[in-house]
């Protein structure tokens, strides 16, 4: 179906909109957390590379918000900055703080967590984007093809960090194991479409939850096998499902920060 030529029925539009919020909010929050790291990575050269990935991801979020804007959901900047937590559809994983402490003070940001979150998130994003390249909603498929181009680098970057730290010192392995645990605790809603599962899956917008989970597992399995490790299990039935607007306090904190300036004068052009 080429939806930009045919008039879309309400059910289809709702399904597309729901999915777009999930995609846009995921990349937006992931990028926001990455932007808090800027200047604080354990190595200057690594800091610079990391920031490019945060910028790319914000660019991806902007493209998804733009698709929502085109569907009449409202201005992209407003969608990104002014929706309250309950309307956000990002996964819990992407909203989590980088570590204890506020970035304006002296935060304890954990590089192991940054690497683990980014590794599993990017692997998940890869299977989602690959699937979206075949989406029935042509504008989304077009965006997915663009995003895929930049994902090659993101994947190589985080694969390298993940694999090297996982096969280095005992200290690093322990820190990575702890970080992976934290990441996987929050992984239950990453492949979830929430209440919209049936609508999203039935319109051929993207592969099913089960299908994507399987591909994700297949992609990361060889590395874990090579280290004689189990592939981490994705929890069944998340405690909180971000796709349904259920979030942690970390999101409220994040939203307050990212909208602090524009909220000071909502009528202003910034």
């Amino acid at each position, binding site marked *: 179906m080429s939806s930009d030529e045919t008039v879309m029925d309400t059910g289809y539009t709702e399904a597309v909109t729901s999915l777009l919020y999930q995609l846009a909010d995921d990349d937006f929050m992931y990028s926001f957390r990455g932007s808090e790291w800027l200047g604080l990575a354990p190595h200057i050269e690594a800091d610079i590379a990391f920031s490019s990935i945060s910028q790319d991801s914000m660019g991806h979020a902007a493209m998804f918000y733009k698709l929502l804007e085109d569907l009449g959901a409202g201005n992209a900047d407003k969608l990104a900055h002014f929706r309250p937590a309950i309307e956000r559809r990002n996964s819990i994983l992407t909203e989590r703080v980088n570590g204890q402490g506020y970035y304006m003070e002296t935060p304890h940001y954990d590089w192991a967590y940054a690497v683990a979150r980014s590794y599993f998130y990017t692997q998940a994003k890869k299977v989602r984007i690959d699937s979206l390249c075949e989406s029935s909603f042509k504008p989304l498929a077009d965006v997915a093809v663009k995003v895929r181009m930049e994902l090659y680098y993101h994947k190589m970057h985080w694969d390298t960090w993940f694999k090297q730290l996982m096969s280095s*010192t005992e200290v690093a392995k322990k820190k990575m194991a702890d970080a992976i645990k934290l990441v996987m605790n929050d992984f239950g809603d990453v492949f979830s479409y929430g209440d919209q599962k049936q609508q999203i899956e039935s319109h051929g917008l993207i592969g099913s939850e089960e299908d994507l989970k399987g591909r994700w597992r297949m992609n990361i399995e060889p590395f874990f096998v090579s280290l004689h490790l189990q592939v981490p299990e994705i929890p069944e039935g998340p405690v909180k499902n971000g796709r349904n607007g259920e979030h942690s306090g970390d999101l409220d904190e994040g939203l307050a920060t990212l909208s602090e300036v524009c909220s000071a004068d909502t*009528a202003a052009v910034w």
Partner: protein
Amino acid sequence: MDKAGKQVEVAMKWELIKTYTVTRFIVTEYLDGVYVTLWKASTMHMLDKGGTRMTNFNSTNDEKQLEQFMQRIEANDKIEASDWMPDEYRMTLIKLISMHGMSEIMGALPEKEWVPKAPTLQRKLGIMAKVQDEMGHGQLLLRVTEDLLVPYGKNRADLMQDLFNGDLKFHNVFHMETKTWADAGIIGWLVDGAAIITQTDMLKASYGPYARALQRICAEEVFHAQHGESIILALVEGTDLQKAIVQEALDRWWEPLLMFFGPASKETTGSSKQDLTIKYKIRTKTNEEFRQIFFDKYIPRIISLGLKIPDPTLRYDQDSKLWFYEQPDWNAFKKIIKNQGPRSEARLNLRRHSYEYNSWVRDALSTSSS
């Protein structure tokens, strides 16, 4: 001269060099855009390491090399890292470029405060890219410094330690607080503007690696300048609140901007080493010349936007073609560059903590260097 006599002569020369060199670094309070003693504690250490080499010198050979070196400088030849160079030249470069590089790394922090808060998607992207560039400039400059430090066996880790110890200083502007989004605009527009003026002057510096790094840096500064202008223009054309925050930010930043170029002469703060960088053709203009160029370029622009410069005495003298202005508080300046500014401790603390908290990463991936 017999062997014993030669030994005495060498020993005396070594004493002379030692005294001269140590005095030079400890007394040096200010070197064109490089503030205060950079290597106070570590100078001794470095001299110890360099000592063997220096005591073994053959005086006629050294003089000849120096003469050839100065001929190359005069001929506008480019000096490269592996070329012979007098210690004075090497130390002048190390002080200048390590300070420049560390200022980029520390300068990323005040602007970074506004990265997650930037008010739109485009602004978030723009300021991320801008601060990333600052880290990138730091990377380029620290690499140039690290290559100069090779004879002393020092590397990136030592430079970081020197920063944390307070031996390696960073620019006065990056010790200041940021309070509103307008600070992100003023930093991009005026602080980067000031930096562009000093950096473009050194594009033809006699030291090739520095000149090449500055080529890249200045090309990116063009983007930074426009990034800053874009933020400022949106604010001055905006709501009352926006206009108010930009004026308030200018009021706070004016004095640090004047200080940015350093005092006009050594009489102001005790000592100055502008002459060395000019002698070796690293830069061509004095601190005051830079400041006057900054006034020429920016005062008309600031005024055209309806902003008020917080100096009622500011005036342009047609005859001398000079701007007259109220001097900043140079005593406050001296304190700031000794890490006693409003945010000096907090920012050093943040840099130190982030470096040390994840030091396990560097340990984990370290390998044998051979």
